Structures are given as structure tokens and as C-alpha cells.
């Protein structure tokens, strides 16, 4: 049973089946929109919707079964890597040098060279030639025979293992992110301070700025923030798209913005029907009565809608947060009694519909609207992130070693022959065989010429 399990997890075929399953499952997850509402799935897939939700196809990448496949796949990577690591470590740390020339003659890259030196002098000479080409040489001497094992770029042997370690570190980072990461969002009006959830400090929005290009399209959104800890400002920085602010493990991202239409400041013109030259400009804040200078009247803005529309129930409401059809409900009072009330429209100044208790000679126009800006910040604390970057670095290092740092090994058996030395040399290179062959040929030439 245990052996069956072991052979299951050490099998490269199993790894390949996992890869194929992961590919298929991942494709499925891109075909079904993820994380939508049940109603949307019902509208899209009809009767299948229930089945999809039960099989967690609608939250596929977070689903139990996808995570189980990932876990089994990781286990497979770990075990495969370990199993293949042992013989490699043996090869590196217990180099074997066979004194029998036949062990060299079976290699693909090979040559026989005669050197005009006695073996005792030849061995250091060969070593120095190999050393000049950055080979490290192990020597094993027998009676009359010497074996030299020359290797370089030995780290390349472990490229794929390092890639796997990198992947596992990334997966570990992902697990930590998933388990301990905190995400939230803060909606701040200018000059508003809010505590950051679970952080022990607060953040204040000092100013929100929208930069525009000359053609009017948006260039940048900026929130000038102050971090407040124990009632003291500790850090001031502006956050832009692509330039988050980082403080004590929490990162703040510019993610949205808008105007606070609940609390606009309105500018209203007051005219008199009887006196065409009469004009008063009045600033109104929501719900705060303002007296009109020289008149026995106060004005109050009771409601404001940026995009006025009458809804299904014939009630005023706003179609959008854009200033498409701004309208304000204004009440005029005199001596505590309502004189008039009604909606005025910035775009339709003549359309004002005033309920009037008595014939009033006042006429109102909505001239200007200013609303405080608010900024939406994403906050994230993700302790998995450092592991992710470390894993990426290890992964890239491994890929580089695996593809571009091929281990090269040359075995040489030196034998005495009539006072001179006969060398049987053979080489192994996992990759770039042509380049290796060229180097090998060059080395053999150098040996021939050595005196």
C-alpha cells in the first residue's frame, strides 16, 4: 500500500496527468464567469446553474477540489524532486572515476590523444589545461593508471530542482496569503479620518486630486494621505494609481473616487418677479437654513439629486452619480411658516415647480454645485507577498541554470605507453552539445600540443 502510494507520487506520468487536469480545470474556470450571483447563473445557464454551483464551478479556483488537486500536485513535485535529488547529490559529492578506459569509450563525445610526457608529468599538465577552462578536477590514481574527472557548472545539474523549490515557495506564499491576508476598502471624504480595520492606526484624506490631460481625459488620481497613530500624524504621502503607500505591513491603493452628493454646497440665485434688476446669490449647505439679506425669508436645501429622474413610483430619485440633471429641493420660510417649496433644476431654470402657500414673488435658480470629493482606497495586508517574490527569484534562477548553465563533465583515463601518455577522454553535456563538442575538441588540441 505504502509502496503503491510512493510509486504513485514518484511517477512522472502522474505529474503529467495532474498537469493536464490542472489545465482542463483552469480552462473551465475561464469559460464560466467566476464569483457572480446565483440569479446571474440562473439566467445564463438555466437548469445547469444549480449543478455548477454544487460542483463549485462558479468559485472554481477557491473550490475544495481544485485546492486538493493543487495540494496533490505539490506533493508530487516534492517527492519527485527529492527522489531525483539523491543520485544527483551522489554524483556531485561522491564522484566516481573508473580506471577502465572502456567507461570513457562508450561516451558520445570522445577522443584518444597521445601526449609526449610521462604520466607523472602529464597529470598536472592536463589538470592545468582543464583548469584554464574552469573545470574542477578530481583525481583517482591506480597502478600505472590515472583517472581524472573534470566538471564545471555543476549547479546546472540542479536547475530543475531549484525551479521546483521556487514553485513550492510561491505556493506556500499563496497559502499564507489566502489564510492570513486581510483586504478591505476605505471610503474617505476630504478631511475625514477613519481607522484602518485591524491595524491600530487611522488614515486621513487631506486632499483628493484628479489630474487631466489637455484633452480632458484622466491622467491620474491622487489621494494625499496622513497616517495617524495614537492621535499623532506619523506619515504624510500621496497615493496614486500604481504608486501605493505602505505602512506597517498595510498597503493602500488608489482604487476609486467620487463626489459626495449627500453633502454638496449649492449656489442659488434669488430673483424677484416685480424687480428685474434684483439678484441675490445665496450659498446653501444641505439642511442648514440661510437667511437672505434684507428679506424676511430663510432658504433651506432639503435634498439634492445629481441626475434627477422620476422613478417607477413617481418619486424623485437619481439615475446616476453623474451631474447629468442636477436638482435641489428648496424650502422658503418666513416667520417659521413655509412660503414655498419645490425642485429647481440647474439645466432647466424655467421649469421650477414651486408649491406656494401664497403667491410669492421670488424666483430661484440653481447656479452652481460643489460636492466634496471622496476617495476609495483598497487596503491590503498580505504576509505571503515576500515569499511570493522570493519564490519568483528562485524560480527564475532555476530556469536560468536549467537552460543556460549546462553541467559539463569530461572523464580522462591516462595510461603509460612507451614512456609517453595515452589519454582516453570522453565528455557528457546535458545540453548545447555542439558548443560542448567544440570546447572538447579545443581541449584535446591543447593536450596534444602540451609538452
Amino acid at each position, binding site marked *: 500500500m505504502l509502496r503503491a502510494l510512493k510509486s504513485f507520487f514518484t511517477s*512522472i*506520468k502522474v*505529474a*503529467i496527468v495532474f*498537469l*493536464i487536469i*490542472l*489545465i482542463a480545470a*483552469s*480552462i473551465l*474556470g*475561464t*469559460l464560466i*464567469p*467566476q464569483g457572480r450571483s446565483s440569479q446571474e447563473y440562473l439566467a445564463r445557464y438555466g437548469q445547469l446553474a444549480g449543478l455548477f454551483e454544487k460542483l463549485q464551478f462558479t468559485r472554481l*479556483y477557491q473550490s475544495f477540489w481544485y485546492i486538493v488537486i493543487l495540494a496533490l500536485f505539490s506533493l508530487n513535485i516534492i517527492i519527485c524532486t527529492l527522489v531525483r535529488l539523491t543520485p544527483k547529490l551522489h554524483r556531485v559529492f561522491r564522484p566516481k572515476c573508473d580506471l577502465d578506459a572502456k567507461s570513457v569509450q562508450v561516451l558520445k563525445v570522445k577522443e584518444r590523444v597521445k601526449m609526449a610526457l610521462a604520466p607523472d608529468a602529464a597529470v598536472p599538465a592536463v589538470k592545468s589545461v582543464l583548469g584554464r577552462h574552469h573545470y574542477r578536477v578530481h583525481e583517482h590514481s591506480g597502478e600505472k593508471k590515472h583517472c581524472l574527472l573534470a566538471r564545471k557548472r555543476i549547479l546546472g545539474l540542479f536547475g*530543475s530542482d531549484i525551479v521546483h523549490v521556487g514553485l513550492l515557495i510561491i505556493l506556500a506564499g*499563496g497559502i499564507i*496569503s489566502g489564510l492570513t491576508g486581510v*483586504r478591505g476598502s476605505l471610503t474617505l471624504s476630504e478631511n475625514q479620518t477613519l481607522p484602518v480595520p485591524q491595524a491600530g492606526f487611522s488614515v486621513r484624506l487631506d486632499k483628493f486630486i484628479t489630474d487631466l*490631460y489637455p*484633452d480632458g*481625459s*484622466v*491622467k*491620474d*488620481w491622487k489621494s494625499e494621505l496622513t497616517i495617524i497613530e495614537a492621535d499623532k500624524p506619523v506619515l504624510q504621502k500621496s497615493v*496614486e*494609481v*500604481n*504608486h*501605493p503607500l505602505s505602512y506597517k505591513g498595510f*498597503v493602500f*491603493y*488608489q*482604487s476609486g473616487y467620487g463626489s459626495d452628493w449627500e453633502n454638496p454646497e449649492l449656489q442659488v440665485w434669488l430673483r424677484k418677479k416685480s424687480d428685474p434688476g434684483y439678484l441675490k446669490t445665496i450659498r446653501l449647505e444641505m439642511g442648514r437654513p440661510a437667511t437672505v439679506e434684507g428679506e424676511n425669508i430663510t432658504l433651506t436645501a432639503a435634498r439634492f439629486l445629481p441626475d434627477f429622474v422620476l422613478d417607477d413610483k413617481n418619486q424623485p430619485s437619481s439615475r446616476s452619480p453623474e451631474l447629468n440633471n442636477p436638482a435641489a429641493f428648496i424650502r422658503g420660510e418666513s416667520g417659521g411658516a413655509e412660503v414655498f417649496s419645490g425642485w429647481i433644476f440647474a439645466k432647466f431654470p424655467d421649469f421650477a415647480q414651486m408649491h406656494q402657500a401664497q403667491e410669492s414673488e421670488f424666483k430661484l435658480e440653481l447656479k452652481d454645485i460643489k460636492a466634496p470629493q471622496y476617495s476609495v482606497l*483598497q487596503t*491590503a495586508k*498580505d504576509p505571503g*507577498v515576500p515569499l*511570493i*517574490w522570493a519564490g*519568483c527569484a528562485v*524560480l*527564475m534562477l532555476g*530556469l*536560468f541554470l536549467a*537552460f543556460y548553465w549546462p553541467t559539463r563533465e569530461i572523464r580522462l583515463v591516462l595510461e603509460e605507453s612507451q614512456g609517453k601518455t595515452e589519454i582516453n577522454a570522453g565528455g557528457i553535456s546535458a*545540453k548545447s552539445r555542439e558548443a560542448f563538442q567544440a570546447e572538447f575538441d579545443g581541449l584535446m588540441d591543447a593536450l596534444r600540443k602540451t609538452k
Partner: protein
Amino acid sequence: MSESTIFTLTFILYILAAFFYLAYLYSKREGLAKLGSVIALFGLLLHTLALILRTVQSGHAPFTNMYESLSFLAWATVFAYLIIEWKSRVRKPGAYLLLIVIALMALASSPLMPKDATPLVPALQSYWLWLHVSVTLLGEAFFAVAFITSLMYLRAESLEKKGLAPKSGLTAERLDSISYRAVSVGFPLFTLGGLVFGMVWAYKAWGTYWSWDPKEVWSLITWFVFALYLHTRIVMGWKGRRSAAIAIIGFLAALFTYFGVNYLLAGLHSYA
């Protein structure tokens, strides 16, 4: 000269190069292929100039809309091909690769692609735009080379089986090893540009390094397919037909990541 004139000239040079490469396929005269290479190289230099001009004029990296990114992918494909050609000294894939390049250039110059350099939306204002897009597309360009040599492998192999092998010396085995070579350049580049740089930028811009957005998932799928290619080849010793088939599927996955996701699946990567 304006950028669009240079672009048109580049296009003409690529067509000319493809013509000579094709003529080489039929006449087997090496000189024609060499002429093709030289013209393609001139095209590449001119194309580089066009990209630089575009960058200077727009003030941002030349891959922020479909026109720019198609043009850059065409550039990268010529670049990748010439590198592989120079290393392998095999010029036969040139004809087919330049046909891909011509298709990309034609698509870029089609009236459907808005060509105006528009100011950069805030999300794209980052030097990670350079790193992420250029390295990814360069990796995909090497996958395109592997795609063509794998297709050529399949044809050459079936001819060899029937005993109809061409005498020109380009064996199926050689094509197989050129495919592997192209993948071994493309895979690290795609990993670095598409996945690593992509994650870093996503973290900077959105606050999460991975959000299972369809484009992200499809790059991962592409990566898995090439991982499959490497493992079956290196560990299991698959070569030839099956290897070629996986490389072809891998390129198609990369192509879908690049094109299909934008048009068929909705997600965060709705820029270009």
C-alpha cells in the same frame, strides 16, 4: 518621415523578405534565402525606428493599444526568428514565419484597429508596462518560432516515413531540436515577463499579485502546456510528433492568451 510611413515601408520589406524566402523554398537556392534574411533584418531595423518614433511621439511605451501591441509582436517575431536563424543556420522556416509577421502587420494596419496615440490611462502609467509587455511578447515570439518549426517537423517526419525526404539536408530531427531551442528561450522569457513581472505589477496596481483574472489564468495555462512539453521531453524522452504537437498547442494557448481573452472573456486586462 512619419511613423506611419516607416511602418508601411517596414511592411513592404517584410513582404519582400517573405517573397525571397518562399522563392528559396521552391528553387532551393541558398542565395535567395540569404537575401530574404538581409531584407528581413533591414525591415527589423526600420521597424525599430518606427517603434522608437511612436514612443517619442506618444510619450509612452509602444504597446498600449491593439495596433501598437500587434506591431510590437510582429517586431518581436522577426527578432526571435532572426536570432534562431543565426544560431541554427537554418533558413527554411523564414517563409512561414514571415507569413505570420505579415498577418500581424496586416491586422495592425486594418481600419478596425484605432491607431491614434491616446494618453495613457492611470492604470498603465508604470515602467512595469515596459517590462511586463515587452518581455512577455518576446517570449511569445519564440513560441511562434517553435510553432512553425514544429509544424514543419510534422510534415518532414511524415515525408521521411514515406521515404520522400527532401535532399536539402534539413531533417525532421533538426527541426525538432530547433523547436526545443526556441522553447528553451521562450519559456524563461514568458515566465519572467508574463508571470513574474505580471504579478509584481498587479501587486503594485491592484494590491493582489494574483486575482484569477482570465488573462492571468490563460498565461498560467500556456505555462503549464510548455511545462508539459519540457517534462515529457526531458524526463520521459518524448521527441518528435508528440513533442511537436504539445509545442503547437502551447503556441495556440499563448495566442489565445494574447488575443482571445480580450475579445471573448471579460476581465481586468481590458486595455489592449
